[in-house]
């Protein structure tokens, strides 16, 4: 359990370092939903930069999982309806709100952005309520 927290902290530091590199290097906020959104919109040089980011973001954990942590899995539900609905809501919600856990959460909160703090509190509260209802009341997830 305690090792989980230490890995959490270490991985978190790496995520923060990633955000720091993107900010100080390219002058951009490292938000996963925003970066993926720029590929979806396919706007020239911005899409190229975003595609490079996403390619590295897939490749680095792929190599670690292959070489160092075989058997890594996500424990995602096998219920395809839940997956499809959840994916749709995550895509829709993060782009309507203009940010997700990385953009509003990590980057926004660390500069004490009121919008980032409010968005993070709202999606956390929404996520907590969702798990409470769907796990403990409806017992679907």
């Amino acid at each position: 359990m305690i090792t989980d927290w230490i890995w959490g902290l270490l991985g978190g530091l790496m995520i923060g370092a990633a955000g720091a590199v993107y900010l100080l290097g390219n002058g951009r906020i490292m938000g996963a939903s925003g970066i993926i959104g720029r590929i979806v919109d396919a706007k020239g040089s911005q899409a190229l930069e975003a595609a490079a980011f996403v390619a590295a973001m897939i490749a680095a954990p792929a190599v670690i999982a292959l070489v160092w942590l075989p058997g890594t899995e996500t424990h995602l539900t096998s219920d395809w309806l839940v997956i499809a609905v959840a994916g749709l809501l995550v895509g829709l919600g993060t782009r309507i709100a203009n940010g997700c856990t990385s953009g509003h959460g990590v980057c926004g909160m660390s500069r004490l952005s009121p919008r980032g703090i409010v968005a993070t509190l709202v999606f956390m509260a929404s996520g907590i309520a969702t798990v409470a209802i769907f796990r403990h009341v409806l017992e679907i997830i």
Partner: protein
Amino acid sequence: MRIFFAILSGGLFGAGLLLSGMTDTNKVQGFLDLFGNWDPTLAFVMGGAMIPMAIAWQMTKSRTPVIGGSFPEMPATEFDRRLITGSVLFGLGWGLAGLCPGPAIASLTYGGTGGFLFLAAMLIGMRLAPTASRYLDSRSAAA
């Protein structure tokens, strides 16, 4: 240079997500399961990520981005319908599956068919978002 920073940052981000445990939906849903068997790992990840980011924001005050230009300004303090409704919808999907956009991408090679389905649905949602946003704006204007 721009592409170099994007690759360095993306690689660190993806590796950090895997090593921190955030591509494991059990850990994410465990954090959101405040009324069950609560798993605090995500709080450590958030806390760890805040430290370099807070330092980076401090550093922006006395320099410009390496590739030139300027740093993003603090957005105006406005809690509009988009921010709140979007975050509620995102939290709903996040709670249901335990994946947010970053981990959904980072876990693509080991997330199985379900991971691909989630990503496909997420991309469709992102495509539909501008239309949904305009609808929310028209509701705001009417209110």
